[in-house]
């Protein structure tokens, strides 16, 4: 008598049994109502899953994914440290990720003590929610440099500092963010880059040590001097051209971050969806 385990019944449904085994199962099913119910569970799961998740297979592939593959440049040499940061900007499309799946935090530090403390720093948790939301994207999309905007419910103020074309053809903005809570302030500098669909995604974040915040786990950490200088060096290395003037920013914002045709070149900006 054929033993009708779940795996066997499932294999029968999925066409994974050879003819002989399948025939045995078919015969056994005639007199086994419970097994027939199990069969329906396995059939239903496939139907449901295909119905729910099949949509992306049938729709047109977003252009940025195709361009991302075609335009991707592979460096043959071992990249410099700063080039590895620049390589993050090769992504042609960043989308807001609710679960911070692809949130990347870059902490400048020297020495394992600093890095270890940095990784535990609570302000990472504080800042991490700011860079994914609609407020953040909308603010960078519409505010010229020097004009601050608030990130709602996060008690944070973001100020774009400069706008530039990154080395891989995307508009990026350097910004400063201040998070205030319970009388203390946390400061960070970041660079966010624009996707083809108009969302902004932080690619580099530098959190200098804040004099207002001294968590106990930082007691033995070492903070290198000159965080601002280091940040400026990193940011300048990421630019393919000098930052835009305020007038150029205003025009770009007015045109929905679409560059003029004669200057488009490899610029991959696009209108917000």
């Amino acid at each position, binding site marked *: 008598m054929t033993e009708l385990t779940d795996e066997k019944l499932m294999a029968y449904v999925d066409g994974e049994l050879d003819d002989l085994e399948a025939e045995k199962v078919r015969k056994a099913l005639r007199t086994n109502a419970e097994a027939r119910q199990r069969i329906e569970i396995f059939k239903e799961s*496939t139907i449901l899953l295909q119905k729910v998740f099949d949509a992306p297979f049938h729709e047109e*592939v977003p252009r940025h994914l195709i361009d991302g593959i*075609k335009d991707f440049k592979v460096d043959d040499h071992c990249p410099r440290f700063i080039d590895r940061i620049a390589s993050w900007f090769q992504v042609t499309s960043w989308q807001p990720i609710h679960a911070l799946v*692809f949130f990347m935090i870059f902490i400048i530090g020297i020495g394992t003590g600093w890095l270890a403390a940095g990784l535990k720093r609570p302000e990472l948790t504080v800042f991490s929610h700011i860079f994914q939301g609609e407020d953040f994207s909308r603010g960078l999309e519409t505010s010229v440099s020097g004009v601050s905007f608030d990130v709602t419910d996060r008690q944070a103020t973001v100020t774009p500092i400069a706008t530039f074309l990154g080395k891989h053809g995307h508009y990026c903005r350097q910004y400063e963010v201040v998070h205030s809570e319970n009388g203390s302030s946390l400061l960070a500098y970041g660079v966010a880059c624009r996707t083809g669909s108009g969302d902004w995604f932080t690619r580099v974040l530098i959190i200098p040590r804040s004099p207002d915040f001294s968590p106990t786990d930082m007691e033995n950490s070492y903070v290198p001097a000159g965080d601002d200088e280091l940040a400026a060096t990193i940011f300048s290395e990421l630019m393919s051209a000098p930052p835009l003037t305020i007038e150029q920013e205003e025009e770009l914002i007015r045109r929905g971050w679409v560059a003029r045709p004669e200057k488009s070149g490899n610029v991959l900006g696009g209108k917000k969806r």
Partner: protein
Amino acid sequence: MIRISYLILFAIINMGESDTFRQQMIDLLPRLRRFAYSLTLNRFGADDLVQLACERALSRKEQFKIGTRMDRWMFRIIYTLWVDSLRSKRSCTPHSSFNEEYHTGGTADNGSTRIEAKLMLDHVIQAMEQLSESDRVVLALVCIDGLSYKEAAMTLDVPVGTVMSRLARARVKLHSLVHGNKRTY
């Protein structure tokens, strides 16, 4: 002169191989997007995952053995990136995405049908959220993408028996969760 010719020929062949490699990857994008969506349960996250996976694959092209299945290789990269990201962040992905199919315009007459379909979509996605990574990926590979048990096992580098037991368990659990979720409404 002959050496130069060979060099030029080599360069041309190399460029051609690179173009073929990239075109194969582009041709796979619909399946990759679907697979990524079934893992992340989030359309935005899915495309970002696919983007990262393609970059990873392009930067490690030398690891791909010509003549082997690129789809399995890409699925493996996507899965690895996804699991790594989950482990580093350990946050559930609240499903804020939706299947546009259920949100396209329609007449008032089929409004109840659309609502019912949307509810079922929610039930299934909520159920998937409660499954483990290993359960979700076997469902994605076999039930959604249609790989055989053997192909799924090779993709994940696990025995076929492992795929079968995980798959059976996942489908039973999915059924229980979906119909359990329905009862709460």
